[in-house]
Structures are given as C-alpha cells and as structure tokens.
C-alpha cells in the first residue's frame, strides 16, 4: 500500500498521562504546567529515557496561563532534560495535543528530528478571570499618570460595576453560540434522541470502568502525589461504574429546558489533566532499542462554518485521512472518537454512514463507512474519562496505540472534533 508522504515513517513509542479529574476537585491546586511536567517526567521514566535523546517538544494548551504562555518550553526545561530542547506550544482547541503530535511527526518525517515528545495539558481549575476593560484601562492609566491630580481625575471615573470580572465562556467568538448549544442543535438536526445519547454516555462509563478494573486504562495513568499532603491520585475521578439510565434520565437538559436533550450526563465534564506521547523515527526507535506501539500512517484536518454544525469536523477530516492512508473504513480494527457530547459522536457516525452526506457534503459516491461498535471507544471516552481540552489528543493517541498492540490490530483511527468547526483525524498502523 502506498504511503501518504515520501518522508520517514514515525513511530508512537509510548504515552502516558495524569489522571483526569473534574475541575475543582483532586488536582485543583496544580497548574497546567505542573500537570504537563508530571506527565512528561513519568513518560521519561516509563520509556527509560535519559533525556538527552529528545530533539524537540510540542505541547498543546487551549487556555494558557498569562504568566507562562509557552507551556512547552517550561516542560522542556525540566531538570531531567538538557536545556537545549527547543519547544513550541500549539492551540487547535480540543485537537491541540493531536496537533502537537502532528508537528512532531512532521519534523521527524522531514528528517529534522529523531525523537520528539508531544502532548497537551489543561486545567480549568485555574482559568484566568479578567478585569473589565474599563477597570484595566483605569489601572494602566494610573500607572502612567505622572501627577497626583491626574491620578485623582482618573480615579473619579471609577464605577463599582467596573469591578465585575469577565469570565471567559466556552463559546464561539465568531457566533456567540456555546458548545452546548451547538451540540443541542446537532442533536435536533440529526435526530439524535435523548435515549440514544444517554445510552451512549452509559456505554462510555461502563467501558471506562471495565478498563480501570482490568488495568488497561490505569496502565496509561501516572499517579499524582498532591502537593503538601502526598495523597496519591491514581484514577480518573469522573468514571462511574454505577452509572445507570434511570438516574441519567432524571437530569434536566441544560441548554434548552423545554425541548433539549443534552444533559450533564451525556456531555464531557470540565476536566484537569495532561498527557504526553513519545514519537521517534522508525530508525531511531530501532537503534535506541525501542519496540514501537504503532506508526503514524496519515492524518488530516478539516474545517467548516462554525455557524453550521459546529462539531461535524470529523465527518470531513476522517475520509481525508483514510484516503491519504490509502485504506477504507472497513480496514480499521479500532476507532477512537473524542466524545465532546454524545450527540456530537452520534451525529458524526450518522454522517459517516450516510449516502446523502457522502454525496452532498463530500462529493463521494459511497458513504465513508459503517461503524463496528465492537471496535469503537473500547475503553470509553471523554464523557466518562473527562476532557482536559489541551490533553485529550494525547490520551486518545496513547489509548489507541496501546490497544492496537494488545489486540494486534493493523489499522486504527483517531477522530477529534474541535472548536471553530474543525475536525482532526489520524490513522495509525501497527506494522
């Protein structure tokens, strides 16, 4: 089969992540940078790296800290590493870590690097709360004013309501529509019922729980020892083995109280966490003595009008990636889809399977493919495990690569929807 590009083949050698915890819970005292460093230190230990092998480092983060905006460089300055590892931070919303992987892939494929660490981190326990524009202007003005009179004059313009802070919402800047409203809209357009969404969410919890119990999921988690107490956090705290449809059905829809179907139970929660993946050129893996989990065969990104169906990006990106890989959907032995909302996953699946979608939207004569539920999100997904925006891509890549090895599957697919109407897809191959 032909390859997507003429460059060197890139191996996914290892991956690990912090536990994913609901924002404001177990990891609330840690900064995204702390989480990122923890994941990478653990990766270094688990992969038996000296630190000197690393050529470059890419990290994704969606809401960066104003104090240390280039999280990647902070990570590459870990004491385990030489100071000479260049690093860049990237933001492609929920596909940020995937994009970090892509950047690493490209540098290796081009022959610019042999070993790259790619990952992502997010904490929503520490989101930047902004002052109002008027209050910011006042503070800046005061620091520039030269005389007391000028300062007093400025102060006289102050109004108490200037102190009301501005909290960033998870809304599209271009349309003002929140993520939840978009998911709600997609459920209606594509006819995704409340029942179907709840069942999908339940599946996510049950599969994740099973992965925890048999150790497949916990194997990729690097326990964190909370500062000041040393209390270990070794598991994702959103996964509920006791989830059931009756309880889920009781929840009120959040975004449309009367006709809505999207609830807290069938959407991914706000989450803190970080993950990292070790990439190597095929040659480097061999000469350093590593047995790769899988190789990157192809990837693709796509974008659509955010005012349309915001989270349908994968429906465009996936066929592109499959084409570039030179394979068909039926060749896939495993599929990992990011679960922002159950309605989003189910909408995209409908699109993959739809003749009409293929013809009208993709200009193809055949549907993309039919989903085999036995190979989809086999350890659950973001609804149960959680979704730290910048980190999810690293988790999915790790989970897929590990499971491909366990099942000895030749082809696996990653699909991630992202804010701004974007979609990401990547095909991994085992051999």
């Amino acid at each position, binding site marked *: 089969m032909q390859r997507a590009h003429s460059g060197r083949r890139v191996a996914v050698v290892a991956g690990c992540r912090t536990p994913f915890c609901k924002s404001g819970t177990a990891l609330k005292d840690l900064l995204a940078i702390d989480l990122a*460093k*923890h994941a990478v*230190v*653990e990766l*270094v*230990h*688990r992969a*038996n*790296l*000296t630190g000197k092998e690393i050529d470059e480092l890419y990290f994704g983060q969606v809401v960066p800290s104003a104090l240390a905006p280039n999280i990647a460089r902070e990570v590459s*300055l*870990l*004491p*385990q590493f030489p100071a000479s590892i260049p690093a860049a931070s990237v933001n492609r919303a929920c596909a940020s870590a995937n994009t970090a992987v892509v950047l690493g892939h490209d540098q290796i494929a081009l022959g610019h690097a042999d070993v790259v660490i790619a990952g992502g981190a997010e904490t929503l326990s520490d989101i930047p709360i902004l002052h109002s524009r008027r209050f910011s202007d006042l503070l800046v003005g005061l620091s520039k004013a030269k005389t007391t009179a000028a300062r007093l004059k400025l102060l006289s313009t102050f109004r108490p309501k200037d102190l009301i802070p501005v909290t960033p919402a998870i809304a599209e800047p271009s349309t003002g529509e929140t993520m939840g409203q978009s998911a709600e809209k997609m459920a209606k357009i594509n006819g995704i019922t409340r029942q179907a969404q709840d069942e999908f969410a339940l599946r996510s919890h049950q599969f994740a729980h099973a992965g925890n119990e048999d150790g497949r999921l916990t194997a990729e988690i*690097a*326990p964190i*020892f*909370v*500062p*000041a*107490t*040393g*209390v*270990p956090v*070794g598991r994702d705290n959103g996964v509920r083995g006791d989830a059931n449809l009756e309880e889920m059905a009781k929840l009120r829809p959040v975004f449309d109280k009367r006709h809505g179907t999207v609830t807290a139970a069938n959407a991914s929660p706000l989450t803190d966490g970080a993950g990292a993946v070790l990439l190597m050129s095929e040659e480097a893996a061999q000469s350093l003595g590593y047995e790769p989990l899988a190789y990157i065969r192809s990837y693709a990104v796509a974008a659509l009008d955010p005012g349309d169906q915001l989270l349908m990006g994968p429906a465009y990106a996936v066929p592109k990636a499959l084409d570039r890989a030179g394979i068909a959907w039926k060749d896939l032995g495993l599929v990992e889809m990011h679960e922002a909302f159950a309605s989003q996953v189910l909408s995209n699946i409908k699109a993959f399977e739809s003749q009409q979608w293929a013809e009208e939207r993709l200009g193809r004569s055949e549907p993309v493919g039919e989903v085999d539920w036995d190979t989809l999100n086999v350890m659950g997904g973001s609804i149960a495990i959680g979704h730290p925006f910048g980190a999810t891509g690293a988790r999915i890549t790790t989970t897929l690569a590990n499971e491909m090895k366990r099942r000895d599957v030749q082809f696996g697919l990653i699909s991630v929807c992202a804010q701004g109407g974007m979609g990401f897809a990547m095909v991994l191959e085992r051999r």
Partner: protein
Amino acid sequence: MSAFSAEVRDGIGRLGLNLPDEPVNKITKAVRDELDELLDRFVADRDVRAVVLISDKSDSFIAGADIDEFVALESREEAHELVRQGQALVNRLERLGKPVLAAIHGSCLGGGFEAALACTYRIATDHPKTRIGLPEVQLGIIPAAGGCQRLPRLIGVRKALDIILAGRQLAAQRAHRAGIVDELVHPAILERVAFGAATKLADGWRPKRRRLGAADLALEKNPLGRRVVFTTAKKQLLKKTGGHYPAPEAALTAVRHGIKYGLEAGLDMEAALFAELAVSDVSRNLVRIFFATTALKKDPGVEGEVPDPRPVANLGVVGAGFMGAAIGGVAVTQAGVDVRFRDVDLAGVGRGIEGARKILKERLKRRRITRHEYRRLERLLSGGTEWQGFGRCDVVIEAVFESLEVKHEVMRALEQHVSDECVIASNTSTIPIARIAGVVQQPERVVGMHFFSPVEKMPLLEVIVTDQTAPWVTVTAVAFGRELGKTVIVVRDQPGFWVNRILAPYLNEAGRLLQEGVTVETIDKAMTRFGFPVGPITLLDEVGLDVAHEASKVLHEAFGERMKATDGLARMTQDGRLGRKGGSGFYRYEKGKRREVDETIYEIIEAAASSKVPREDVTRRLVFAMLNEAARALDEGVVRSPRDGDIGAVFGIGFAPFRGGPLRYLDDTGAKQAVETLSELSQKYGDRFTPCPRLKRMAEGAERFYPA
C-alpha cells in the same frame, strides 16, 4: 615564582594574587614577604593613588592563612611571632596612606577576610562561590590578625560575635546585608567597579556606611549595655560548648578587651590568646579532624588500581519509608539527582515523596534555594508501585523493612529491572551485606550505604563493602555519598559495621549502669561532660528503643557474651516505649520536646534502689567499653585506618572532636594505661572489659595507632 602580579593602570596599583601550584590562594610566608615589598613600591610610587587587591584565581580570593605553617608551630613563642607578623602586615594595609580596596570573588576566609577588613573599601561578587567568614574557632584558634577587632568595629559587637564565635561563613548577599562588604556586583564587572571606586576614593570620596540599628545602639554604645551583650554571649556559649572548647571563649575575651581598651590592646590580647591556643591539645585534635576530613574527601575508598567512579544522575530508592524518603530528599537537595521511589502501595510512595519534599522545603524556608529552584528540584521526585524508571538508574538504594526475606525479594526484582552498570546498595543497619547479596547474579555490584538518621542532619555515611564488592562499585558509592554532602568511610561487612559496633558495648554498659541503680541523669551527664553532644540514654531515645534492641540482639548473636545487653531495652519496648518517635522512652516527651526523666522507668527495668558505682567508674565504664571495642574492630580490619575509625566515631556518634576520636584518645591515654584501666574494670565489673589483644600487644611494645 612570584605570587602577585603587580601593575599600575590609570593611577591605580593592581595587586593580583595567584599562588603558584595551589588550587586556592592562602597567606604563606612568601605571600607576606612579597606583599610587603610590593606595598613599599606602591607607597613610594607617586603615580599610584590607590591600590586594588584582587585574586587572579578563578574562585578563591584568599581562603585563609597557611595551615601547614600553623601546624608546624612548636612553641607558644613561635606562634606569637607568627601572629605578630600577620598583624603587622594587615595593619599596614589599613595605614598605607593610600586607599586600599579588596575586590572579592570566591572564598574570603580567615586571614584573607581579616586582610579585607583592614582595607578602605570592599566589593564582593554576588556569586555562590563567594563566601566570607572567620572559621578559626572550628580549628580551636581565634582570628588573630585583627579580626576580633575590626569586625565588631565595622558591624557592631553582636553581629560580629555571631560570626566569630560560631566560625561562620556568609554568602555574599548576607555579608552585604550585614554591612561587611560595601558593594555587591556581578563577577564580570568586579574589576571595573573596583577601579572606579579606587579613583573616587583617591579623589577624597568616602563611603557612607550604615549606622548601627536602634537596638544595637542601645546595647553597644554604653558600658552597661555592652556588659549585657558580653555576659549573654558567654552564657550561650558555655551552654553550647560545655566548657570543652576554649577558642570561642578566647575570641570573646579578645573582642571584649579590644572594645574596652582600644585596638592596639585588643591586638595584643589576640596575639597572646592565639599563641596559647595554637599549641593546645584541643586545637591540635580539631586540626587533625580537619585534615582527616579533607584527606577523606580525596580518598576514593579503594587501594591499588582505582577505577573512575561512575557519574550518578539517576537514583532509585526502594522503600519510601522514613529513611528512604530522607535519602531521596537529601539526594535531590544536595546533588540534584533524579530520584525514583518504589513502594508497595501508592499511599506509601506519596508519603515518601512528601517526606523528601519536606527536606527540600526546609531549604527554601532557610532561603538556601529560591522558589524557582524549589519548583525545579521538586520535579526530580517521582515514584510508583512498579519498577518503571529503574532501568535508567545509576544507583539504587534499598531502604525496605529490615528482614532478609524482604531484602532478597527486592534484590531479585532489582536484578530484573536495573541496567548492568547500576550499583545496588542496601541501607540496612543490621543485616550483613554479603547475605543480602547472596541471591543476586552479580554480587560484585552490591554494596552497603549505611546512612544515619536524620539523614539530612547526620554528616556520616558508612559504605560497606563485602569480599566480592567490585572496586568500581565502591568508588561510585563513595563519590556519590560525597555528592550527598556526607563524610564517607569505607567499612568492612561485619555485624554492626563500624559505628554500631563500637556503640553497642557503650549503650549496653549504660543499660547495666541503669540496672545497677545509677540514675539516667548521672549517666547522661557523665558523657556530656566527657564531650559527647548527648548522653547514651538520650541517644537510645533518639535512635528508637525498638531499633536499638533489634541491633543489640544481632550483635549479641554475632559476638557472644561481651555484647550481651541487659533486658532493660526488651522490657521498655514491651511496655510500648519506643523513644522520642513514640512519645515516651527513658525521658518524657511533650509535643516532640524532651521533658524530664520518666521516674517510672526504674521500676520497669527493675533497677537497684541505689548505686554503689563510684562516679568516676561510670565515666570509665562507658568510655572504655567503646574504646576497647574500637581497638578490637580496627584490628579486625573493620575500618581501613585509625583515621577512618576516628572520623566515623566523631561524625557518626559525636565522640568528642576535641579528643580526636576513640583511637586518638587511646593514643593520648597510652596503650599501657588503657590496658591497666581495662584490667581493673574487668576485675571489678566483669570479663567484658578484658583488654583486647591489639591493645595488649600495643602496651607491650609501647605502640600507637598513629605515628607520634
């Protein structure tokens, strides 16, 4: 070859010191003579308007006077003559008639600092290598080139005493804050700034110096207040030294005399006191310890062909308990190595990591590291329940439960996971290393690294080698121990190793004395009076009664009757008393603080109602129990030399440093006298005091451990 390079640039005379063939600058006779001559030249040279004294070595301004010169002193008169020469030169710097500047980068200690104090102006670099202080009292002498005079005049009596009496060294920032140096600059501009300041001083500018604070003014600017300062200082001092260390007391006298009667009288007093101290036994022994420690720092730990130690960047610690956590914490803090913990459950790993973080936090609290450095170093601590990360370790130290079975399990697992280049060390205090190594394929890479608790405070490390331990393993363990800031002795793999071996008969004897009706206070006081930092009963409480009991059983088993302990410890532990850590031992503890002796213990151990042991025998029994065992163990080759044995006893037990260690003390006592004392004790108190063969041999031949 000359030590100074002298040149005149832009009207400023530059004296650059670079003592040939020495790693650091020190004030030797040659340096003194040459400086004297150069000063003559600069005084005579009309073009020279000011003088800058600077070092041409990379990290040493002047590390002090030449110790070898001082050690060679044979009489008080010689010492007096030497110190007078030094004083004259330093006085000359002060009274040159032209401004003299000290441009300080690197160590500026002892005589070097005293010279700088006599200068008109002092500029130091804000570099970590720049350290300023007067360590003289640590060698049993006092600063006698005007240090006891000029420092209090510069920064006030209280602050000066703080530095002089403890022999402290300050980082440049602290010295600047204290008013000792006038300016703090980056090393790159030191010389430029010094030349600029020299020109200004030559033009008549005088630096403004901070005046004393209100409290110091109130205390120091009147006779009554000064008296309070000196009496308080003396009281605190005696409490600390127990009267065993005359040097700090002498320094106090010198400072006081100078303040009262003026600089010249003060200098006379300094000289007189120095001459006396310089040839005293206390100073001689402290200097020996200093030399021994310095020599040990260069000792690779093996004889014959010495392989290079392997660099250690990654440390694995198996067992994240109290000891493991502390070892990891010290490794991160002192050596900045990556530390990977492994324990059986996550909670245990977490406690270990937190324990290590505490040691790091303590450094932050003491401002030895910045917040940024803390955050960076903290990242070196990680761990888990699996063996991940052990493949990249250069050294692994196991600190698991003291059971051979558990240790064997660890050894077998380690062999699966570590690389062939990894040193495997055990922190056991009771189990022979050879037995631990018995189950591994490559016993040559197994070694003991016996740390003492609390690891972050205790300065000694015993590296235990078996007959099979490979030289590269020993040198790596020794070098790594040194990186952890420890004084390292190499010890042969015998029960109790060195420190616990000589400690056991001493502690046993304390137990016997207790049972015979001697009070806890009498026993402890006898030993603090001898020069130990704490008495044996307090030590038992500190070590932990259960730990001591276990160790004593092992040694009894190994060495038989003479190491047999009374059953006091067994009874105490059965009563649930574990010492300080458990909140109750021979003493009472409240909130971690020691209170009075717990009178109920006499009943628990079934002590005799009153004692017939003469007080002098209390001391002799305790001390000679240890001395006899030390001679015996040395004879068996447990330590490599009397030097190692003495250093082990001083740093591991706190054996009175001014007595030089047990073997040095035996030399000073004389083998013949020691054998007589031991024979007398054995007649009165039992066979365990029978003089060991080595001592008997030495008594016959009038031999010594050290060359006379």
